């Protein structure tokens, strides 16, 4: 790929980890995008915050464990990972329930991240 002036990209993950392939394919997009972009922000909101829950057990469903997929983020230098605090609150999730490396952000901070993005990819 030619050298490009990089746009500030945010990937917004809104779907729960299981029940459809969207969440998994969203994470695959994050991993692929990180190869080309030096800075990538990934924001989890709505039911998307369920993707971040630590200790998921998929033994009986035959799905790949979604939290293990997310564990690849540091290997891809994806370290700007955010969870919408209001989405966590609505689901009675606390930061302690989440995998490492996630920053909870307020509605105002979320709005600022989206407003500053030149491109938002929403899955």
């Amino acid at each position, binding site marked *: 790929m030619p050298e*490009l002036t990089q746009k500030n990209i945010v990937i917004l993950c809104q779907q729960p980890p299981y029940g459809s*392939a969207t969440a998994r*394919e969203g994470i695959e997009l994050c991993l692929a995008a990180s*190869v080309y972009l030096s800075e990538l922000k990934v924001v989890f909101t709505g039911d998307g915050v369920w993707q971040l829950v630590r200790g998921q057990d998929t033994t009986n469903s035959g799905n790949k464990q979604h939290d293990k997929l997310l564990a690849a983020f540091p290997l891809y230098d994806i370290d700007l990972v955010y969870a919408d605090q209001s989405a966590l609150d609505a689901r009675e999730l606390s930061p302690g329930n989440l995998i490492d490396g996630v920053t909870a952000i307020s509605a105002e901070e979320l709005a600022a991240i989206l407003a500053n993005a030149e491109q938002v990819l*929403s899955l």
Partner: protein
Amino acid sequence: MNYALLVLSPAHSSQGARSALLFARAAVARGHKIERVFFYGDAVHAASALIVAPQDEVDLTSEWATLVADNGTELLVCVGASLRRGLLDETEAKRYSKSQYNLHPAFEIAGLGQLVEASQTCDRLITFS
């Protein structure tokens, strides 16, 4: 303006898949360029050459193919999403020892990198989900 489209909507069971096509046509009619359309997730089924649309229904695949022929738009389907949904071109069929392939010739199999590239080079990237 130079547009790229990201289509996530299931090809034959959602309005999003139709809306993407209608948007592309409307943009072209206004003199804009649709440089690349990237199909991801269940949207990749739009690229199957084996779809038989009922006579009184829109044949989405041929409609996309017409757009390519008239405007040089690139239609790309994600390789990972396509393979796991049984959508293969001749190269992939050979690679995985499958006896058949079914990708419509107007479409090409591509990597997610080409979506990221389009997001960087086009003026706008519009998602249909």
